[in-house]
């Protein structure tokens, strides 16, 4: 009898509501569930491809004879060409840090602590992270657009037909260049940032060089520099790696190249912030 009551109940609903029910269910239940499923699936596929590229890169490292000669030009493009923008950012970061430290400390601590705050934060945080984020835009986007264009114009297919492995020929030189050059660019940027903070302290805060240096040396630990270097090596690997990955995944013409470039900047920036937190938790 129970089974008979269900159709009766259904029949008792107004006809319009009965028609709307599947549509509502489709819209509010099936739709979001299907979207979630699709998103999960595409994320897993993407992760699988990234993992495959990672392992292919590890294997490709052995072929030094092939990627070695391509390393120097890539180091120039990834590192040397990035110095001006990194220095520009560092100069203004140094000025702001110096002024904000003075503003924060005034009346509570001696002014030479400006040097302490500037030194510590520039070396372990602002130098690596700000430079890393800028390079994610500059280097990551360049790599992604370059490889993406090569992909959609079949240049990568052409490389393969000429018996070249794109991972050896394109990915490894860029990634190794990033690993080597990012720490150097960050060291230059950090030094310039501290320098600009120093000049600001002398010119605008009426501090002496002796005071600034006293503060700078107060809590300085050589480990801080190593911490920054380790961090930026990981930033170099992730920015160039993400750029290569999305570049090689590009499809659908110019629009695809644009999408790959955007994804690279977004994902690389997110990875930098996650890695920053990771290294702080692990190494400090």
């Amino acid at each position, binding site marked *: 009898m129970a089974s008979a009551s269900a159709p009766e109940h259904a029949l008792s609903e107004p006809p319009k509501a009965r028609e709307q029910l599947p549509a509502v269910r489709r819209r509010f239940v099936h739709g979001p569930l299907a979207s979630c499923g699709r998103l999960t699936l595409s994320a897993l596929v993407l992760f699988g491809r990234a993992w495959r590229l990672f392992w292919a890169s590890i294997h490709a490292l052995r072929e030094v004879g*092939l990627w070695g000669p391509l390393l120097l030009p890539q180091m120039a493009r990834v590192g040397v060409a990035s110095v001006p923008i990194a220095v520009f950012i560092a100069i203004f970061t140094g000025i702001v840090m110096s002024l904000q430290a003075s503003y924060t400390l005034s009346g509570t601590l001696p002014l030479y602590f400006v040097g302490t705050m500037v030194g510590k934060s520039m070396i372990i945080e602002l130098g690596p992270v700000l430079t890393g984020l800028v390079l994610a835009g500059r280097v990551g986007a360049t790599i992604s657009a370059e490889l993406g264009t*090569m992909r959609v*114009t079949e*240049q990568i*297919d052409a*490389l393969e*037909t*000429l*018996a070249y492995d794109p991972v050896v020929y394109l990915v490894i030189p860029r990634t190794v260049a990033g690993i080597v050059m990012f720490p150097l660019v960050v060291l230059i940027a950090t030094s310039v940032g501290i320098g600009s903070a120093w000049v600001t302290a002398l010119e605008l805060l009426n501090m002496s060089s002796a005071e600034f240096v006293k503060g700078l040396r107060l809590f300085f630990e050589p480990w801080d520099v190593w911490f920054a270097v380790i961090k930026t090596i990981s930033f170099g690997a992730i920015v160039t790696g993400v750029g290569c990955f999305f570049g090689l995944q590009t499809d659908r013409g110019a629009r695809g190249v644009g999408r790959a470039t955007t994804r690279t900047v977004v994902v690389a920036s997110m990875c930098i912030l996650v890695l920053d937190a990771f290294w702080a938790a692990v190494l400090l």
Partner: protein
Amino acid sequence: MSIHLDRVHKAFGPREVLCGLSLDVAEGEIAAIVGPSGCGKSVLLKHIVGLLAPDSGAVVVAGRSVPELDRESLAELRRRIGYVFQFAALFDSMTVAANVGMGLRRLPGWDGRRIARRAEECLELVDLAGMGDRYPAQLSGGQRKRAGLARAIAASPEYLLYDEPTTGLDPVTTSVIDKLVVRMRDELGVTGLVVTHDMTSAFRVADRITFLHEGRARFSGAPDELRVAPDAVLKGFVEGDPGLYYGTEG
């Protein structure tokens, strides 16, 4: 058989491009694959050179199953195959001469001077003598295609795969390219596979023509057999008659 495909299936998402395609190309023969745009001709070529793997079926080149080859063996096979891309696919950051010599750089016994000499030889062969110092962006469409052909023949391959070698070219350049394709076979004994929808070109160069339709080989035979084939769809394609091709005539 030099190139052998057996019941090859390939789908991209829900769209099946090759639906059990079988094809044989004999040693020293030029086979033309004709068919409408988007019927899977380029996909077929990419399977032969291992750029794509079939979902099912066999792809055998020179007695070796391409999908089963490891990285080194595939690279070795690819050195025996020249591939002429539809839009040339020249490396735009390199000069034309560097493009042509690119495949030779990794071969033993090829130093810079020998590569430069060979690049110049190949460029002469495709009527691009003296253009080695230019960049791809400085070439016309026809010149780019010829440079792509020069790059494909530089390493003296045993097989040449041509993806729409004459599309978008003027009749004179088309004729030059066609003569080059035939010359590669006559002088160097190269086995050729030409993918095209230019029927004049196909009749001019091919020993055998295969008509690809809906992912399968609908016709395969000598050019003279194709001319008299009774199949309306084939006739419609060859004569450029939509009524016959789509079966809407009458």
